[in-house]
């Protein structure tokens, strides 16, 4: 895990060095004299050998110092921590939709292999796989917001409701519930539901496909035949015996899905003007705000590492064979 993290920082560091953005030039401006430029360059350490520069970068990252954002003039970490909960809220609901919908769908597809529920699932998955998320987002906005008016439009909450509830978790819907303010809750949820559904649909497509594959593998096993021979109901054989063994594999899939949701949020958040990490990174990128972009990249990478850790910790809960190794 430490190695993964080091690898991650190496990659982000060198990306930062090879792209044609000169941080010194960005600070002094193009009209500065050569002397000033060289001085600034030495001040921020760009004249040092690369390994030394990397070492200093790593030391700063480990102290939570990602530098200062050029656009907001705030430390990048402060920026990220303030926008991250919005992304987390979006990704969590999307994951919930993906798992709660995708797992049963995959199970039913596997038990009805080759019949209509299977074909329907394949069609849904194929559509989810092949449609670009920004297109789905735009169509969704057009249909459910502009035409039908079922949900609120872009943004996280209506202006009138902003800062109405105290921040506890940073997840607006949860904070509103904690505060007991149901108007805010309803408004926030209404903003949340469309982007979350679209992201959730994409992960549902993936989770359903993986679940189907895992289930087909398990249904062929001898213990399934034995469970039937005991006289158990089809329901118990499928949902308790076979699915119980599928969770072991599904945990990794769901964890990785969550990671890709955080990452996939960049496009969705742009379409929905969702003030999260994705939108922050996109704005930084378009403004050549290097520190912010690299900080965001490290953040998403760290999220992946943490998710892997969590799924490793969850294995023993579903698989008794994993309990002994720890």
């Amino acid at each position, binding site marked *: 895990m430490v190695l993964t993290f080091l690898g991650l920082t190496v990659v982000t560091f060198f990306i930062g060095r090879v792209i044609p953005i000169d941080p010194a030039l960005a600070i002094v401006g193009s009209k500065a004299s050569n002397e000033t430029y060289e001085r600034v360059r030495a001040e921020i350490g760009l004249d040092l050998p690369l390994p030394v520069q990397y070492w200093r970068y790593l030391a700063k990252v480990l102290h939570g110092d990602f530098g200062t954002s050029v656009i907001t003039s705030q430390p990048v970490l402060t920026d990220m921590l303030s926008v991250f909960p919005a992304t987390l809220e979006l990704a969590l609901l999307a994951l919930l939709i993906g798992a709660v919908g995708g797992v049963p769908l995959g199970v039913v597809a596997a038990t009805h292999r080759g019949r209509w529920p299977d074909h329907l699932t394949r069609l849904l998955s194929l559509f989810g796989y092949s449609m670009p998320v920004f297109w789905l987002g735009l169509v969704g906005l057009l249909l459910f917001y502009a035409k039908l008016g079922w949900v609120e439009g872009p943004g996280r909450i209506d202006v009138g409701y902003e800062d109405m509830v105290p921040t506890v978790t940073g997840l607006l819907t949860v904070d509103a519930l904690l505060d007991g303010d149901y108007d805010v809750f309803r408004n926030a949820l209404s903003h949340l539901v469309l982007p979350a559904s679209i992201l959730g649909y994409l992960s549902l497509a993936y989770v359903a496909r993986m679940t189907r594959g895992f289930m087909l593998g398990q249904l062929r096993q*001898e*213990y399934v035949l*034995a469970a039937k*021979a*005991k*006289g*158990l109901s089809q329901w118990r054989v499928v949902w308790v*015996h076979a699915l*119980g063994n599928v969770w072991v594999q599904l945990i990794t899939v769901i964890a990785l899905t969550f990671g890709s949701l955080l990452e996939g949020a960049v496009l969705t958040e742009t379409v929905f003007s969702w003030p999260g990490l994705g939108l922050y990174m996109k704005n930084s990128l378009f403004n050549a705000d290097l520190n912010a972009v690299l900080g965001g990249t490290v953040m998403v990478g760290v999220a992946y590492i943490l998710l892997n850790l969590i799924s490793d910790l969850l294995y023993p809960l579903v698989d*008794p064979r994993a309990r002994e190794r720890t």
Partner: protein
Amino acid sequence: MSTLLTVRNLWVTHPGDQGDFVAVRNVSFSLGRERLGIVGESGSGKSTTGRAIMGLVGALGRVQAEELRLGETDLLALSERGFRKLRGRRVAMVLQDPKYALNPVMSIGHQIAETHRAHMRAGSRAARLAALKMLEAVRIRDPERVYGLYPHQVSGGMGQRAMIAMMLIAEPELLIADEPTSALDATIQTQVLAILDELVRVRGMGLMLISHNLHLVSAFCDRVLVMYAGRVVEACDSGRLHQAQHPYTRGLLAALPELGHRRDILPQLQRDPAWAAGA
């Protein structure tokens, strides 16, 4: 002796890409409260015969017979629901390898109690007690401890005894044991067979022992059916196996190695296509 199981002209067909595959053809036998052995090589249809009786030939497999009857129950007319009530309660099946036939993520005791709960109108406490008693019946010392163990934590022999407990807890009349000892060490084989024998005898059950091991079947069973290519080619009392008529059986017997008679080359089994055609 009352007849437990009647099988008359049983055919089992699996549809395949290149036409139907006939796994069992024209098999007839009946079984009382006795031990019947079915021997044959891989693919001879012995396992499929057992599964047909339990209605477990798969969604696509087709079972046809003039008569297929468990006691008074007509298995040919039975729905999936009907079979579900029958499985475990009236006819159960022990599979070959406990490593694969027990659910790896469920404790052994739980799996045994589950059969009890599926068939007996009793609560989870009663099921637990029954499972502990059943573990004792298959001669597991310290049933309390084994109850909470998972399949990967027990040896093959203990796993197979747990499997027997799981299949006998609802007191079925007929047990189909499909190669029950083939995955076990030779020393354990005898123990497990002895336990199986005792339980079947004490409970007055019928037993169908499916095996490729001619020695084992003739030593353990009252009667033997020899199957080849989906057909029964020989049926006789196991004591009279040495008088068997069919050339296939004679070939099998001749191929058995004997202690004290050192033979450099075992005779090769000659197969005649006419046997499969029903000669």
